[in-house]
């Protein structure tokens, strides 16, 4: 019998192996190599920031537009990219399951780690850079920023496992996730603050768990110059339910996987 500690060691080893494999496969060794992991989301965020700057999307509020865009778009990348990569993760790694130690969950965990590292790195570099050139101020409450970011990351990871595992049940999930992620983007709280929308609409958007995460993030970043609306208990509950659902789906997904 393998003890829990041994199993944990094996899983750590497998995830490490998958991380290295994935990073080299995706980013190669040419030019920037692994730095693309951070550069890619940075380019995205900078582009979007430029657009929002031109469009003055902060609606004349007290928040500087650059800080608004960076906090908003980075948080979208955090959960959306993670889910995108997990989606179809089983199919593209099926043959690895011939190695007994490699389990479906390892594939997801390694992909989640990579996406989170990229999004977090990009957010950090941009925040530090714009702070240094004095375009934005340093966060008022870094711990709150961390808490908001953590909630968004947890949301992204649990949703990634749900969507990724669900593709083993129906291929429709894989196709539908793309459009769905586009459609929920405007509601995700990235491009607006809850306080700006009419009260009736506020109730609706506050059903979206990621809205709470972004609001927390911005509360920590801007402090009292903005009014934020969020409920940590609500996101935590949604995340917990998603995590459990994901793990249940995953357990049977492994049984359903079929080799080619």
């Amino acid at each position: 019998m393998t003890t829990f500690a041994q199993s944990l060691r094996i899983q750590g080893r497998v995830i490490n192996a998958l991380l290295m494999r994935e990073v080299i496969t995706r980013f190669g060794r040419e030019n920037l190599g692994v730095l693309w992991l951070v550069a890619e989301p940075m380019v995205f965020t900078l582009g979007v920031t430029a657009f929002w700057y031109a469009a003055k999307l902060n609606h004349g509020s007290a928040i500087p537009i650059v800080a608004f865009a960076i906090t908003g778009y980075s948080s979208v990348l955090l959960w959306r990219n993670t889910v995108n990569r997990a989606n179809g993760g089983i199919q593209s790694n099926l043959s690895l399951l011939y190695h007994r130690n490699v389990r479906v969950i390892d594939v997801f965990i390694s992909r989640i780690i990579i996406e989170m590292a990229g999004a977090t790195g990009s957010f950090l570099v941009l925040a530090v850079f714009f702070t240094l050139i004095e375009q934005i101020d340093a966060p008022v409450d870094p711990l709150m920023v961390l808490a908001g970011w953590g909630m968004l990351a947890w949301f992204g990871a649990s949703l990634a496992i749900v969507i990724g595992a669900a593709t083993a049940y129906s291929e429709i999930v894989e196709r539908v996730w793309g459009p769905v992620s586009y459609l929920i983007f405007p509601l995700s709280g990235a491009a607006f603050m809850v306080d700006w929308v009419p009260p009736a609409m506020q109730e609706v958007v506050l059903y979206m768990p990621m809205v709470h995460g972004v609001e927390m993030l911005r509360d920590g970043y801007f402090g009292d110059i903005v009014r934020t609306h969020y409920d940590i208990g609500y996101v935590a509950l949604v995340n917990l339910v998603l995590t459990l659902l994901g793990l249940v789906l995953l357990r049977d997904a492994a049984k359903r996987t079929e080799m080619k």
Partner: protein
Amino acid sequence: MIRLENVVKSYPTRFGPRRVLDRVNLELGRGSNLGILGRNGAGKSTLIRLLSGAEQPTSGRIHRGMSVSWPLAFTGAFQTHLTGIDNLKFICRVYGVDWKPLVRFVEDFTELGLYLREPVLHYSAGMSMRLAFALSMAIEFDCFLIDEGLAVGDARFGHRCHVELFEKRKDRAFILVSHDPHIIKMYCERACVLHEGRIHDFDTVDEAYQFYESALVPAPTVVFD
């Protein structure tokens, strides 16, 4: 010891679930070997996938008391954008083995030269096969799973595979599946036949061979008017 207890594997089809393996029971002790004969579509590869752990049985239990290899010389798990060496590193990391001392062996065995540092994408089928076989030999297992013909590469390479597997590792267990009774007869001390999802066990390879030959010829269908 590897033990299969009442293993059933069904796959969904458009016409409902199809049972590919039906209550299969098997046992294999350390250091012993077993040949499994079966026609095309008899479920041989399904059995290998279950044994390797790539797929889970629909019902029944698989007990593995020794380490079981992935299907020998399986090329499908290569990440083709990685080089041969990268793939070696990956396998070694998964199995917790230091890769550096193995580079020499893989170089000598595959004779791939500079190509070992090229993406697998640029390999011919024979080159991939050589790399795959070398990686299979790089990690030590108690039991090897061998799917189909060992007729890999040219005669020279075939001979070297034979030496690595059946001479240097003759203390190991293996399960060899094939549709070719001659291969089974050449390598295995025991054989069974996989026919219509069921395992038919025999004491000698010859008995298995006889059953297989008779099962191959479909019994004449008697039609009553």
